[in-house]
């Protein structure tokens, strides 16, 4: 690996403030050419703001940017691309109803005929092994393929610096492996890469250098290959992480939730149908459901919670009672509580106070309503208890839900359901976009609830989380659920292949040799 020590990009004393927050506080750092440089930090540390400044989406309040030694002013993304800066966004900036080629054409600054563009796209796809059909409509593609569009789009301008904002949060392990091959190939050709992530293992595997941000400031720089994940995490959050306590030997009681051949026709054009899903969860057990986003997780969550009512009453059985035809309120009375994935607008109403939000799901189990009248006192006491027990940072029970940060609102929602002492809890993506401190508190709460004898279904895309918390694990792909297995009995490769839609094909060789055609097979 030959790497010159030329500085590609240098930032000096960049500051950017928003109303109420100082997102970047006097940040300086440099990226060498051909270097894969990690920007590491929790949510809200200022990583995204910083790269938006580099890419010209935002302007810094103060500070200077040097590009290949020259001072530059990056007025907009177009100017950034003209310099040779490309960016792949965390939330893809794609147009669902348009074809792959149209999406790529939209990212080009100059007018290019479709024929020439298609030729160029083919060249790049072949060179880096980024397989795509340019005629496909984006809404029919999987997440891995969508990311490839973004990468091809960024590579078309021959970037000297590529910014990747949390690129792996939605990929299968095999897709991650393939992405890393592409990034290493680019770095070898002299392209610098700024890699944003909070996944420490990935940064250790990929990056040459890491700049660590906390609260908008640079708090350190390190060589990730020489650090441990734990030491980097501590730099990132500033204090030492609590390790999650999990009892070693667990005994499970009788079956709490039984799902028999559950099927659901797809709802709407972008929905996923569920096909013959069966599993059981015993009291005290946490069943994890892994899978790449959009493979039926939302549908499964809504069917289990009772938001979607089934025709087959026997498909879902709670403690021996068939509830397939019962709605969410009736299921709550029987002891099933649920936390959907989307916090703002689904699990909580953003403009309602925390108090009103507690009434919405806890009114039955906490006897807040008598003869149609709400017992405000009871509701307030319950809300205050959630805030105190779950350490929710807020101005009080009357604060509106959207005044809370994502992590705090999630703690509130988890607290609201857990304090209702559910017999069965179905929870989706409990720590998505939540900072590490709140995340570990939420995980601990889930484990504690299981210890008290609740049966828990945990739907998540975060494999580390599933492996950490769950007793058994199943994978959902295109609406089909694999047979649940004990967590110790499944290898990461096996889970990854199931996520990509390949059943029963467990490779015998090591993980680095896996051919990543899984995405194409699932599309």
């Amino acid at each position, binding site marked *: 690996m030959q790497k010159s020590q030329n500085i590609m990009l240098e930032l000096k004393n960049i500051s950017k403030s928003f109303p109420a927050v100082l997102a970047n506080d006097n940040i300086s750092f440099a990226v060498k050419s051909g270097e894969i440089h990690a920007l590491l930090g929790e949510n809200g540390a200022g990583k995204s703001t910083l790269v*938006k400044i580099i890419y*010209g*989406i*935002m*302007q810094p309040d103060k500070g200077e940017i040097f590009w290949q030694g020259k001072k530059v002013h990056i007025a*907009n*993304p*177009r100017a950034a*691309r003209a310099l040779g800066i490309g960016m792949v*966004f965390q939330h*893809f*900036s*794609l*147009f*669902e*109803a*348009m074809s792959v080629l*149209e999406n790529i*054409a*939209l*990212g080009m*600054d100059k*007018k290019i005929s479709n024929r020439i563009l298609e030729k160029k796209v083919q060249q790049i796809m072949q060179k880096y092994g980024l397989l795509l059909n340019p005629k496909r409509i984006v809404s029919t593609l999987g997440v891995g393929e969508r990311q490839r569009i973004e990468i091809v789009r960024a590579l078309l301008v021959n970037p000297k610096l590529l910014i990747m904002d949390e690129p792996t949060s939605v990929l299968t392990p095999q897709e991650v492996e393939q992405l890393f091959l592409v990034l290493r190939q680019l770095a070898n050709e002299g392209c610098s890469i700024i890699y944003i992530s909070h996944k420490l293992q990935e940064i250790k595997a990929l990056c040459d250098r890491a700049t660590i941000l906390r609260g908008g400031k640079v708090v350190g720089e390190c060589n990730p290959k020489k650090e441990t994940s734990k030491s980097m995490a501590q730099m990132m959050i500033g204090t030492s992480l609590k390790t999650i306590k999990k009892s070693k030997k667990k005994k499970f009681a009788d079956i709490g939730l039984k799902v028999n051949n559950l099927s659901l026709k797809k709802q*709407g*054009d*972008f929905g996923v149908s569920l096909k013959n899903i069966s599993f059981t969860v015993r009291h005290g057990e946490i069943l994890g459901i892994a899978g790449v986003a959009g493979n039926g997780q939302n549908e499964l969550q809504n069917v289990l919670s009772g938001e979607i009512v089934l025709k087959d009453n026997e498909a879902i059985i709670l403690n021996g009672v068939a509830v397939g035809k019962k709605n969410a309120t009736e299921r709550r009375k029987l002891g099933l509580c649920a936390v959907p994935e989307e916090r703002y607008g689904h699990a909580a109403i953003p403009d309602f106070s925390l108090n009103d939000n507690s009434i919405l799901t806890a009114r039955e189990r906490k006897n807040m309503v008598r003869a149609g009248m709400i017992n405000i006192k009871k509701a307030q006491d319950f809300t205050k208890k959630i805030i105190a027990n779950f350490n929710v940072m807020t101005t009080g029970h009357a604060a509106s839900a959207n005044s809370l940060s994502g992590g705090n609102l999630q703690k509130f929602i988890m607290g609201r359901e857990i304090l209702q002492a559910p017999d069965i809890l179905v929870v989706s993506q409990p720590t998505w976009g939540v900072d590490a401190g709140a995340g570990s508190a939420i995980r601990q709460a889930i484990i504690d609830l299981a210890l008290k004898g609740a049966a828990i279904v945990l739907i998540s895309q975060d494999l580390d989380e599933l492996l950490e918390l769950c007793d058994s694990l199943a994978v959902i792909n295109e609406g089909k659920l694999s047979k649940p297995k004990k967590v110790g009995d499944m290898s990461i490769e096996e889970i990854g292949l199931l996520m990509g839609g390949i059943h029963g094909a467990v490779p015998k060789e090591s993980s680095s040799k896996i051919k990543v055609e899984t995405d194409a097979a699932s599309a």
Partner: protein
Amino acid sequence: MNIDLTIAIIITMVGASTPLLLAALGELVVEKSGVLNLGVEGMMLTGAVVGFAVAYSSSNAWLGILAAAFAGAAVSMIFAFLTLTLSANQVATGLALTIFGAGFSSLFGQPYTGKPIEIFGSIFPPFLRDHPILRVFFDYSPLVYFSLIMVFIVWWFLYKTRAGLILRAVGENDISAHSIGYSVITIRYGAVGFGGMMAGIGGACFPLILTPQWVEGLTGGRGWIALALLVFSAWKPARLFLGAYLFGLIATMEVYAKAAGGIFKILPSELWASLPYLATIIVLVIFSLRHKASSSAPACLGKPFIATN
């Protein structure tokens, strides 16, 4: 049915369809950019009254059309400023624009009521436009040919040009388009202005070609039908053309049912007159029952865009 009657029906149908087609094509571009302008009726009325006033005063129909286009675009800019720059609610603002257009045209048109004007008819030589058969091709106002050319131009613009691609992208995902570096607001201003211009010209068809005189509220809700046509056509130019002509045919039936008598006498003429509106409701109900219709709408339709920085 004899050939003369057939030709007469076709010519009436084409005339009745043209304002609808013009307004709907304009609104197609507006909605493709993600803006829902419910003020089509108001812009048509504004175009109609201004077009008539200018044509009457100058005795030049061409000037009238030009003024109508300008007036339509001008009122659409009020809408654009309120909804795009000030992020006002598009539905409420669009409704307000319609009420404004109705009021303005009635006030401004007062002095012109009952004034005669020469019809803005065919510009082809008499042997073509009066020929018993060939007149089916030539006995139309220039605006009819203009509307047909615009079907093609709008289609070509939306699907074959880079500017059209960008416009559709803005309507599909405004946040992404902004993050790539396109100016969502500027593009939407342009689209709304084009929509206003087309609605203005469409409105001017009534007093200059169809009526031909100024009558208060003479568009008769065609602006609303144009909006419904977009749903019916699933936002596709070719289907928009078919839809507009289908509605034109239904509207024409009123006229000929009255004249034909016979079996058409079974239904009262008021019912025939209400057919285009009934058809609109039926079509909307049928299309909203199918899930496809809603998903072919531009994804950002009606949502205000506020840049995050």
